[in-house]
């Protein structure tokens, strides 16, 4: 009895040590980034390096903010991430519902074709998408809807994801037929069934898809770089690299800009933590 208690304690200590170590290792670069963003330019390159800034330079943020139009980048990024996530959710929910519940000719074929596109590497799509976008210049008055340097180019190629469709179809298929039939008898149309029953029953999965898409859109780098030349159309990730070359050796400013970039994602995560964790564990997905 006593010995098991002792060994349990040892086990607990070991467990927590490993967990704490893991947490420190994951947190370290992040903490380092925040601390560095508060150092002076001489302190950041000092050897040996200091851990805590001697005199926190909050003005670094001000300076980084003023050196490049981060607000503009930020707004662009939000527009793109929200737009594409909204699009993805709509296309994903509608097609998953169709594939899981509706019967129409060619359903299996269309689904297989979609699945087959998962085999095509994303890099190949980038080129064809680029050519399409390049040739599709579309302007209404002064605003460019499609073509290089447009929101359309940044958003529209990303408003449908075969992988998410596949994933959500699997979730929808797990909803028993009896529920659908019961709803039929209860005078619930297909449309209403989708919004009132299918969607709420799979809320976790839908929210997870939304969050994952939002994050990947937020972090997207290559595509926005390709289809934008105008600095005003840059998103945060490109803006940051651009800034990096401009700021040269002012690492503290780069760090401050990086902090600004990740902040919204962290805030979103804190708010939706419950959904993300449940959704990811339940869907067997890893972020």
């Amino acid at each position, binding site marked *: 009895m006593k010995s098991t208690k002792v060994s349990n304690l040892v086990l607990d200590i070991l467990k927590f040590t490993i967990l704490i170590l893991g947490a420190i290792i994951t947190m370290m670069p992040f903490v380092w980034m925040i601390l560095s963003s508060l150092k002076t330019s001489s302190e950041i390159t000092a050897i040996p390096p200091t851990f805590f800034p001697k005199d926190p330079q909050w003005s670094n943020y001000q300076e980084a903010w003023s050196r490049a139009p981060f607000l503009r980048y930020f707004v662009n990024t939000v527009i793109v991430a929200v737009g594409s996530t909204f699009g993805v959710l709509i296309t994903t929910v509608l097609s998953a519902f169709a594939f899981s519940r509706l019967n129409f000719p060619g359903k299996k074929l269309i689904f297989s074709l979609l699945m087959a596109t998962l085999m095509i590497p994303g890099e190949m799509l980038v080129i064809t998408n680029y050519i399409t976008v390049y040739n599709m210049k579309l302007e209404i008055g002064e605003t460019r809807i499609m073509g290089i340097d447009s929101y359309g180019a940044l958003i529209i190629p990303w408003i449908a994801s075969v992988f998410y469709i596949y994933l959500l179809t699997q979730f929808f298929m797990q909803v028993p037929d009896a529920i659908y*039939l*019961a709803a039929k*008898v209860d*005078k619930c149309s297909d449309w209403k069934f989708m919004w009132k*029953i299918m969607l*709420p029953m799979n809320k976790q999965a839908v929210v997870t898809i939304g969050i994952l898409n939002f994050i990947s859109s937020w972090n997207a780098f290559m595509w926005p770089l390709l289809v934008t030349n105008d600095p005003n159309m840059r998103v945060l990730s490109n803006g940051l690299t651009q800034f990096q070359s401009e700021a040269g050796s002012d690492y503290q400013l780069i760090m401050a800009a990086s902090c600004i970039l990740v902040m919204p994602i962290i805030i979103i995560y804190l708010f939706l933590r419950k959904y993300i964790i449940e959704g990811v564990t339940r869907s067997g997905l890893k972020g």
Partner: protein
Amino acid sequence: MDIRIENLTKAYGDFKAVDNMNLTVGDGQLVGLLGPSGCGKSTTLFMLAGLTEATTGRIFFGDKEVTKVAPEDRGIGLVFQNYALYPHMTVEDNIMFPLINRKVRKDAARQQAYEMAKLVQIENLLKRKPSELSGGQQQRVAIARALVKKPEVLLLDEPLSNLDAKLRVETREEIRRIQQEVGITTIFVTHDQEEAMSISDQIAVMKSGVVQQFDVPQSMYLNPCNRFVATFLGTPEINIIDVEVLGGTIKCGDVVLRTGVDVKNGTYKAGIRPESFTHRENDHKYSVNSVRMIGRDLLLHLDMAGRDVRAITHSGQSITTGDTVEFSVRESSIILFGSDDKVIGKF
């Protein structure tokens, strides 16, 4: 509202899940649709509900033909085997759902849902989610949801099969009570003959898509129309033995079961219910192979000319394995089946 089913057939390719069914259910009656797994009970029920399209045949509710009417317009309440409650909604929202879809105002719907919940005695559970209820409670919610829109026909697909034995008995009485209280014409699907016999006004026994017999429970038990019905009803199961009729005497091996019957000479299958054996002095002596206690009764396995037959006798007697007992078979309880398994007569 009475239900009339005329020549109803559902075919899947060459396979007939329901084959030329004819049935009339009187207003306010509870009819048990009984049969083994895969015999077409659910298919029948779903055709009545309008969820499965009939291949041929017609269905009438009252005077109105509903064969082509959409499920939501048939005025039916349907309860599924696994209840099919909406898991993300509270009990109250579940019950209100059919009303809201029928554009009933929210407060009126809530009021009706409450009354229905009270009828099935779950009015204190309205704010819970289905996952926070026991099987029996979920069952009641499903019934409340089916009844709340005041349907004229209630269809229940094996509503008790997910419950444990004791709860099953309680809940079936409860269903009977609710059905009587509402006075709704009800069709109740089950594969449990005891369940069907205990609460139904009438029973339809199905096999391979065909209705074998449609009758009140007692008369079906006493006068089955064929071997399948005889075997399907009753526990312990009826004994089916090979007998020979010669000059008006029914014999099983060298055991004389009956004399003076008016049946053509030949060999037959005979059915004898276990409870038809009765003690009689100086009758045939059977040796007892085994004795088992089942509730108030003793279940004996007897040796009848080398065949094992089940007999039930009350447990007051002290009978043990290896004893011999003197039994005869009660008047008109030997059921003879012809070569087509139809009943020839009872002797």
